[in-house]
């Protein structure tokens, strides 16, 4: 690890003796997970609980003429069969727009389709029964009469006058358009020595969480209160929206989020079938469970990344990049997703293209269109893989064109490490990035020169290997302006409450959530370090709107940076409060005392003065022994939201070393490297795991994953045999290195690390494949890079 900004004069609260910060410590929840004692929603059984199965449309676009459930309703074990019209008595529709995304439009979406279905997989009726199997049996006896309508499937023709408009009330199929023009783009292209253009194509894909989306909704008519057990990244968001559409006050809704089996952004949205489950519980006055099966997960979990992006770059002979231009088109399905909207991804692409580089000339257009396919929305590293693949693909093409080494062209154009703070041509503000330090480090880690030499030698033997480099920036820690500014009631701040209990242990309630990334661990590490107690004494409570402070949750790589800072600040207060009362008890002054190893100690010689459990005993059970007027407060709460920068940008660089079998079109991933800069590293192992996991998802996009639709809008590979997720057998070793530029917006200095791996992995692989194929003059700007795509590009088939 190398550090960009060292500040040796002052020791922060993080540098205390026995600090857990920067140390690999096991996750506190490891035993629970490994012993199979976790509680996932599907583990939950409540008295009188019924199971719901959704009957889903087999058509991409159709009128619902008639639903006949008479026979099914008679079947044993069937509790109710509910149509969209019937359910609309208890739940109102919604429209997925945000006011700050100007011009974004969408149509009202209902929990269950009413009159019309707009994608294959949209739910048309809810079958509630005493077991899932019984409900599935009954579903086979519900007869739905459809009139098939023409489906809009190709995003390229979605805006043509001859194409049907999916929502007549909207006038056309354009959901959102953004145009951006900075600097003097035409002039910059005119002044370039070479201009290169390419069409980049990205496969639609999805998150494939190990645990599918699941909900148990429990309406207690006596309390007039709904408890929602759900694997979600944002419990307070779910609380707000469930209440809003069920006509309840937020205090009438409790959201409990226990263990979650992976999320990746899939579980940060409001899904129609989940809303229907809440409504069914209210309607039927009993607990209702919905657990998506794998097929419906593929058909209804948000998809992402379905983009076609034309890109253009201008370059001078000396390697100077003069301008970037993009024209991005994406199809998001029939509705903009609620409440974060489906325009964010394209918007992000516009924001991020060209972001690592000094060129100020940038023109972009992004269009977001409706189509009759499953909805698209934010998935891990929203927009980043598109922006990074386009940018880095163009940079490599420019380098190829002028005969410059890919590392060299980046050295000449990446924003200098001492140029911060500065802005990007799309208007982003960077506090402190480390592109050059990262690039130097990765070049060293991979022994770039040796690899180049090896590449030359092997080429002579007919073995075609390639090196791909991809620099990237990553949006983390969204600030006060998200998402409330656009009207969505999603908290931008997070809160933490810490208290010392009567035996000197600490209970910490945080509003961030855990989906496997280690939120629980990093919170305990921070609390333990700042307070001076061992981690085994810190119990972290998360995922319960009744029990935790109000907050945004875990998404956009914000858990450590925002929730972690709240934990740090809350714990500082608790520490001060403890030292204040300790000073009274010990007849000392707080300044002369510290806490270490679960005891109050002397600052001067570290000698223990009083154990925390003894202090707690006095405070809780013998306050009569304290001097009059002493009112110790052994619980403290703090909230945090960054205010200065809209995002804490992180940066890094990835490199791929691949071998292409030019006879078969198969790509072998030999090795992958990442250098990233997420600021302060709380737990190196957790960061490395985040990076590696993210890289693997990016490699999935590069080589394997794609939701394949036919021209009638049928998803043809909605199962684990045909939708290829990346598996360990194909994954290379992934070496991770770090550069550390902490953010000054917080005392903790942590930025996010959850999405960097995904951001640049596909770009690195694409560049590597094109590098390998140089002798053949083939250039591919499409992912996934399937054998079919590669053999076609090579002219072999």
């Amino acid at each position, binding site marked *: 690890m190398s550090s960009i900004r060292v500040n040796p004069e002052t020791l922060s609260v993080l540098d205390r003796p026995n600090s857990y910060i920067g140390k690999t410590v096991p996750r506190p929840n490891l035993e629970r997970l490994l012993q199979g004692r976790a509680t996932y929603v599907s583990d939950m059984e409540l008295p009188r609980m019924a199971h719901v199965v959704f009957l889903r449309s087999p058509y991409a676009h159709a009128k619902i003429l008639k639903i006949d459930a008479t026979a099914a309703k008679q079947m044993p074990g069937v509790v109710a069969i509910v149509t969209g019209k019937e359910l609309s008595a208890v739940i109102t529709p919604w429209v997925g727009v945000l006011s700050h995304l100007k011009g974004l439009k969408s149509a009202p979406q209902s929990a269950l389709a009413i009159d019309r279905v707009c994608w294959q997989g949209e739910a048309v009726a809810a079958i509630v029964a005493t077991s899932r199997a019984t409900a599935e049996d009954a579903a*086979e006896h519900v007869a739905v009469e459809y009139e098939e309508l023409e489906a809009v499937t190709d995003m390229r023709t979605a805006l043509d006058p001859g194409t049907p408009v999916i929502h007549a009330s909207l006038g056309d199929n354009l959901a959102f358009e953004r145009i951006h023009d900075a600097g003097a783009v035409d002039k910059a292209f005119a002044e370039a020595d070479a201009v290169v253009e390419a069409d980049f194509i990205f496969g639609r894909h999805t998150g494939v969480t190990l645990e599918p989306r699941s909900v148990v909704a429990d309406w207690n008519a006596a309390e007039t209160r709904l408890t929602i057990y759900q694997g979600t990244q944002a419990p307070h968001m779910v609380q707000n929206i469930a209440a809003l559409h069920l006509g309840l006050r937020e205090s009438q809704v409790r959201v409990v989020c226990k263990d979650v089996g992976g999320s990746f952004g899939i579980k940060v949205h409001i899904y129609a079938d989940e809303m229907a489950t809440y409504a069914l519980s209210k309607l039927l006055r009993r607990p209702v469970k919905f657990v998506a099966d794998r097929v419906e997960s593929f058909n209804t979990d948000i998809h992402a990344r379905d983009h076609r992006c034309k890109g253009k770059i201008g370059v001078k002979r000396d390697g100077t990049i003069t301008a970037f231009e993009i024209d991005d088109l994406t199809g998001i399905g029939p509705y903009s997703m609620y409440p974060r909207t489906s325009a964010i991804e394209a918007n992000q692409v516009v924001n991020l293209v060209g972001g690592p580089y000094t060129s100020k000339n940038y023109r972009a257009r992004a269009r977001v269109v409706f189509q009759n396919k499953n909805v698209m929305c934010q998935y891990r590293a929203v927009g980043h893989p598109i922006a990074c693949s386009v940018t880095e693909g163009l940079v490599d093409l420019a380098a190829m064109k002028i005969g410059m080494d890919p590392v060299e062209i980046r050295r000449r154009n990446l924003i200098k490490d001492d140029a911060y703070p500065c802005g990007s041509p799309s208007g982003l503000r960077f506090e402190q990035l480390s592109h050059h330090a990262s690039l130097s480090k990765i070049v060293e880690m991979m022994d770039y020169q040796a690899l180049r030499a090896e590449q030359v030698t092997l080429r002579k033997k007919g073995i075609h290997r390639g090196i791909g480099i991809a620099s990237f920036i990553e949006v983390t820690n969204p600030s006060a302006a998200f998402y409330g500014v656009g009207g969505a009631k999603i908290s931008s701040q997070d809160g933490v409450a810490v208290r010392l209990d009567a035996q000197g242990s600490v209970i910490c309630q945080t509003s961030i959530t855990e989906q496997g990334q280690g939120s629980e661990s990093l919170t305990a590490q921070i609390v333990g370090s700042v307070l001076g107690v061992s981690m085994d004494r810190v119990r972290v409570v998360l995922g319960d709107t009744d029990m935790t402070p109000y907050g945004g949750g875990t998404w956009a790589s914000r858990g450590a940076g925002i929730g972690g800072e709240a934990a740090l600040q809350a714990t500082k207060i608790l520490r001060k409060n403890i030292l204040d009362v300790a000073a009274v008890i010990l007849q000392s002054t707080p300044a002369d005392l510290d806490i270490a190893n679960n005891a109050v100690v002397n600052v001067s010689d570290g000698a223990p003065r009083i154990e925390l459990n003894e202090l707690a005993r006095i405070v809780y059970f013998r306050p009569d022994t304290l001097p009059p007027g002493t009112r110790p407060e052994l619980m403290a709460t703090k909230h945090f939201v960054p205010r200065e920068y809209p995002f804490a940008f992180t940066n890094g660089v990835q490199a791929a070393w691949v071998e292409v079998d030019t*006879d078969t079109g198969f790509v072998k991933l030999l090795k992958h490297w990442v250098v990233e800069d997420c600021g302060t590293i709380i737990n190196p192992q957790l960061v490395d795991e985040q990076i590696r996991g993210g890289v693997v998802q990016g490699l999935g996009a590069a080589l394997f994953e794609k939701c394949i639709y036919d021209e009638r809008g049928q998803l043809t590979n909605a199962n684990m045999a045909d939708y290829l997720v990346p*598996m360990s057998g194909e994954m290379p070793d992934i070496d991770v290195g770090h550069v550390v530029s902490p953010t000054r917006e917080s005392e903790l200095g942590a930025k996010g690390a959850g999405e960097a791996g995904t951001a640049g992995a596909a770009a690195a692989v694409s560049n590597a494949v094109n590098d390998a194929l140089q002798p053949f003059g083939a250039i591919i700007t499409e992912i996934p890079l399937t*054998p*079919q795509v590669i053999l076609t590009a090579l002219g072999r*088939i």
Partner: protein
Amino acid sequence: MKASAFAYARATSVANALELLASHGERARVLSGGQSLIPAMNLRLVSPELIVDIGELKELRGIAVKGETLVIGALTRHADLLKSSDIVKCAPLLAAAVAHVAHPAIRNRGTIGGSLAQADPASELPACMLALGATIVVRGPGGERRIAAAEFFTGIYETKLAPQDLLVAVELPVARKGSAHFFQEFARRHGDYAIVGLAAQAVLQGDGFADLRLGYFAVGDRPVLAKAAGKLTGVAITPALLAEASAALSDELDPHEDQQATPAMRRHLAKVLLSRCVSTLLNRPDIHRGASA
């Protein structure tokens, strides 16, 4: 994804299994390893009324060498094939192939009988049966039938098995002296069904082949024993001859289109496999480079 309700019977003997099958006909299904049947039931692609579990029939499990014949019981699991020294000795092609069948967890349950009865055209084992000249032993209401592998596979998931039949064993000739094998498949990920694969069994003689059997899989609706192999036996192999055999192979195959490959790509990959097979078996790298250029 829950199977619809079904009745379950655990067969106590082969005779008992045959009785159950005979009385229920098409409405019954044999359960072996369940690695193909259970997913299909959970997806409600099939909804048998009765499952006849033959898992306890020890007499159907095991590998034995009887003179010049290797006998493999239908319930022998993929993992057993992989571990067996008899297989390595007598049918090394099979050992090479099984390593490509699915993943360890599936190989621990999946059986050779289930795989052959399933007759997935992309499966490794059916193609091996063709290359090895296996005999499939079947018992049905009319007694025992012995069907040559070349006759057994009749289409996608279709075989000469009737609903009342039980596949009980396969018999393979023990590998002769001078025999050699080649196995390779192209799959997107380890353990996936292949896009195209080749299981080849040869008898080497001098610089060439006295015999060459090319069992292709995933190139059509059933495994294919390529006739083009005939062009390469008993002659001196030259790049020109290989190119000729390659062209014949291409004409002979009628591959399907799916999400992984077009027919053209399958033909191309089949030809790549042919040249790799020949150059590997004859240790002639020159031939392969010439053919793929």
